[in-house]
C-alpha cells in the first residue's frame, strides 16, 4: 500500500474520528491550548508593548528580551519546565502546564516587539495633533496610537499563533494532547498512514490559522489608514 492510500485509509477510518483520542478531540485540544496560550501571551505582551511604545521607556530592554525569547528552543523550554510543574502538580503537571508555559514564553516576544514598534512608530505629529485636540493620554493611546498600530499588532499575533501551534505539537512528545500525538504515536508504531494523516492535520491547521490571520489583518486595518506614510510605517513595523 503506498503512502497516499495509507494516509487516505487512515483519515477515512471512522474509528479515528471518535473518542478522546479521535481526530476531533485532538483537534479541539490543540486549538484550545493554542488559543489559551495566545490569549495569555497577548494579555501580558500588549499592555507592556503599548506602555513601552507610548512612553519610549525600556525600548532597549524590550528588544533584548525579545531577542533572547526568539532564540529559545521550544523543546528545551518545555523539557525544562516539565519536572518543575510535575513536582508542583503531579496530576496535570506532566501533561498540560509545561507546554502551556513554553507556549506563552515563546508567544510573548513577537507580540511585544510588534506592539511596541507599532505604537512607537506612530507619527509624532499625529500624536501632537491628538494632544492639541485636547485628548488626555489614555485617549491618545486608545483612539490614535492603538488603531494605527493595529496592523503591526495583528502581524505579531500571527507570528505568535504559528509559533504556538508548532509548540503545541511538540507537547505531544511529553504526553500532552493535541494533534502532535498522531505524529509521535505514528513514528513509534511505524504506522505511515497515521504519521501522514497527522502531518496533513497539523500542517492544515497551521496554514488555516495563518490564512485566517492574513484575512483578519486586512479587515482590522483602520479606515483612517489611507495615508501612504502611515501605511508604510505599519508595514515596516510588521
Amino acid at each position, binding site marked *: 500500500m503506498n*503512502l497516499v492510500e495509507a494516509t487516505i485509509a487512515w483519515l477515512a477510518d471512522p474509528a479515528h474520528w471518535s473518542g478522546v483520542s479521535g481526530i476531533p478531540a485532538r483537534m479541539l485540544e490543540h486549538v484550545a491550548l493554542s488559543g489559551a496560550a495566545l490569549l495569555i501571551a497577548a494579555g501580558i505582551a500588549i499592555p507592556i508593548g503599548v506602555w513601552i511604545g507610548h512612553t519610549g521607556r525600556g525600548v532597549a530592554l524590550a*528588544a533584548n528580551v*525579545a*531577542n*533572547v525569547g*526568539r*532564540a*529559545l*528552543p*521550544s*523543546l*528545551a*523550554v518545555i*523539557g*525544562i519546565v*516539565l*519536572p518543575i510543574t510535575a*513536582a508542583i502538580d503531579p496530576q496535570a503537571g506532566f501533561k498540560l502546564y509545561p507546554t502551556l508555559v513554553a507556549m506563552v514564553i*515563546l508567544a510573548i*516576544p*513577537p507580540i511585544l*516587539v*510588534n506592539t511596541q*514598534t507599532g505604537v512607537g512608530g506612530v507619527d509624532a505629529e499625529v500624536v501632537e495633533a491628538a494632544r492639541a485636540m485636547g485628548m488626555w493620554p489614555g485617549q491618545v493611546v486608545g483612539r490614535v496610537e492603538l488603531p494605527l498600530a493595529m496592523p503591526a499588532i495583528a502581524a*505579531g499575533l500571527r*507570528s*505568535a499563533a*504559528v*509559533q504556538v*501551534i*508548532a*509548540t503545541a*505539537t*511538540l507537547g*505531544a*512528545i*511529553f504526553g500532552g494532547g493535541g494533534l*502532535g500525538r498522531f*505524529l*509521535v504515536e*505514528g*513514528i513509534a508504531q511505524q504506522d*505511515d498512514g497515521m*504519521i*501522514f494523516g*497527522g*502531518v496533513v492535520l*497539523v*500542517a492544515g491547521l*497551521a*496554514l488555516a490559522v*495563518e490564512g485566517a490571520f492574513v484575512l483578519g489583518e486586512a479587515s482590522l486595518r483602520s479606515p483612517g489608514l489611507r495615508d501612504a506614510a502611515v501605511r508604510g510605517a505599519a508595514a*515596516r*513595523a510588521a
Partner: protein
Amino acid sequence: MIDWPWMADHLDELAFRLVQHFFLAAIAVGVGFVISLAAATWVARRRRLRGLLVGTSSVLYTIPSLALFAALVPVTGLSVLTAEIPLVLYTLLIFVRNFLAGLDSVAPEVLEAADAMGYSPRGRLVRVELPLALPLIVGGLRLASVSTIGLVTVSGILGDRFGGLGFFIFEGYRRVFATEIWFGGIPAILLAVAVDLVLLRVQRRLTPWAASEAVATGRQAAGAS
C-alpha cells in the same frame, strides 16, 4: 532534585552531543545558505518566480517542525536526511527573504553606475550587489543559525542517533529523570543564546554603519519551533 554525580559522570557524553548538535545545525545552515543564495540571486529580477519561491518557503515555514520531521520518516526512514531536510527547509524562508531584501536595498543608481563602469552581470553581483547586501545577509545568517539550533533538539524524535543536546531531553523524559532533561535542555538554550550573541557581534563588526538594519532584521521575529 538534581543528581550532580550523574552529571559529572556524563560530561564526555555532553561534549559528544554538543559537537553533534553543532554539526547537525552547521550542515543545515550551510546547505540552506548556498541553496537560498543561488535561488535568491536567480529570481531577484524575475517577479513570478520570486513570488513562487517566497510563497513556497513561507508555507514550509508555517508547518510545525515535528510534522516536517515526521513527514519524512515514511520516505527517507530514520536517516540523516530525515533530520537534515527539514532543518534546511526551515532556513530557506529566513535566508531567501533576507537575501532578496538585501539585493533590493541596492540603489538603482549604483547598479547603473556599475553597468556603466563595464561590470559583467556576474561581476556586478559579486563585487557590488552582494557586498552592499551584506548587513541583511549576516542578519539572515544569525536568525537562521539560532532557529536551526533550536530545531536540532526536535530531531531527537528520530531516535538516539540524532537530536544533539535534545537527546538528553527525550531520554530524560523516557526515564522520568529531571536531571537528564535539564542536562540537555539548559545547554541547548545557552548554545542558542550564545550563538545569537556571537553572530550579533559579527554582524555589528562587519557592518558598523548598519546598526538600524540590524534592528530591522531582528524584528522579523519568530523562529520556527
